[in-house]
């Protein structure tokens, strides 16, 4: 199987890297995960960490080797992250990932809404890091803003949310959501077609325990990402949102303005498939943060 060959290749690469890191350590140099960029094209090591962020969890050489070892020797995915419990390496269960594989993306994505399909793997990573670090999914009442075809909503339900409500402006996407969720025998959910930035009824205020979202990044419609977070903070006291790592400092600043806390829960790689005609490359990797806004 191609997968196995890939795995072996990654294995080999990582071992080489470890050796290199060891040498560097001996010389007093600091090994960096940047070297992972040399992985063969087409391979997506889970959650490659970008560098240069002082607040990113700092892994010691031992921890990093453990993470690499876990990634190579297990069928699970592992993410590194900062945790108050000292769990720097968190397992992300592959079964869950598989469960989400059948969730379809957008038929005809709309660029005005910046619709990009959140991949099953990315969604699994996001939700597992939220659940394993803060326990904010299982048994909780969850809202998914800009839910689109529903991958985060369905994921949250699979992880045991008590009730999930998906909000989206695009009724076409909600139709796909409905056909996606039909296969799962999940009934404790609800969908609402409305404009997330202005149309969510105030009756929903503080109705939810947790908000999750992969909002439009605001590349096309400037400021819409901020509007999504603001809308989220009205619905629950904890909001998890996916943003480009490059905008992290901006959101730290914004969160101070709003008097809420902001923390990086995980740094992930978003393998953005070629979605629109103006995309020239087959796919582009962008680094994204799962940010936790909380009161």
């Amino acid at each position, binding site marked *: 199987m191609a997968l196995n060959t890939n795995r072996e290749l990654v294995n080999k690469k990582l071992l080489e890297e470890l050796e290199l890191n060891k040498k560097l350590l001996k010389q007093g140099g600091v090994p960096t995960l940047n070297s992972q960029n040399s992985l063969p094209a087409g391979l997506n090591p889970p959650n490659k960490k970008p560098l240069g962020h002082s607040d990113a969890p700092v892994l010691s050489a031992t921890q990093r080797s453990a993470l690499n070892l876990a990634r190579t020797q297990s069928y699970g995915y592992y993410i590194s992250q900062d945790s108050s419990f000292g769990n720097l390496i968190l397992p992300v269960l592959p079964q869950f990932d598989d469960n989400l594989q059948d969730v379809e993306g957008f038929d005809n994505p709309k660029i005005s809404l910046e619709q990009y399909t959140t991949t099953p793997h990315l969604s699994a990573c996001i939700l597992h890091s939220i659940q394993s670090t803060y326990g904010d999914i299982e048994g909780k009442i969850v809202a998914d803003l800009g839910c689109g075809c529903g991958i985060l909503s369905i994921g949250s339900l699979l992880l045991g949310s008590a009730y999930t409500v998906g909000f989206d402006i695009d009724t076409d996407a909600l139709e796909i959501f409905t056909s996606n969720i039909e296969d799962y025998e999940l009934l404790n959910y609800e969908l609402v*077609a409305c404009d997330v930035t202005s149309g969510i*009824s105030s*009756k929903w205020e503080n109705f939810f325990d947790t908000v999750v979202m992969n909002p439009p990044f605001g590349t096309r419609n400037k400021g819409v990402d901020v509007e999504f977070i603001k809308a989220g903070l009205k619905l629950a006291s904890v909001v998890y949102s996916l943003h480009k790592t490059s905008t992290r400092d901006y959101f730290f600043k914004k969160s101070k303005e709003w008097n809420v806390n902001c923390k990086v829960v995980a740094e992930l790689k978003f393998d953005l498939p070629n979605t629109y005609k103006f995309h020239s490359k087959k796919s582009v990797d962008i680094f994204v943060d799962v940010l936790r806004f909380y009161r």
Partner: protein
Amino acid sequence: MLTSKCMKGVTQGYPLGIQAREVKVTESEFNIDFVSRVIPKLDYDTLWTAADGLGYSTDLPKTLVENYESNEDFLKKIHHVLLEIEVLEGDLICPETGRKFPITSGIPNMLLNEDEVKY
């Protein structure tokens, strides 16, 4: 049901009336913790009126019972109304303007036409 009952907004009157053309009754797992947590978040009168309008109020007490957290029988009834009765096709109606918000395939559409949006 839950969505229909909780709608309120600047441009939408409250409580919204509910008119059903097609209702589906399903069975879903009873989550006692969820139901008892969700009750204080709801306006009980509105919920009752809505259930009544759909013809599902027979078993439902008209006012919220005391100590409902420990009243499993009552919680099960609320569970039924909230989670097992789904309006598949119908309308939510604004009491002030008569504006209808259609429910299609179980999804209430609260989108306003451009000329209705006030900024």
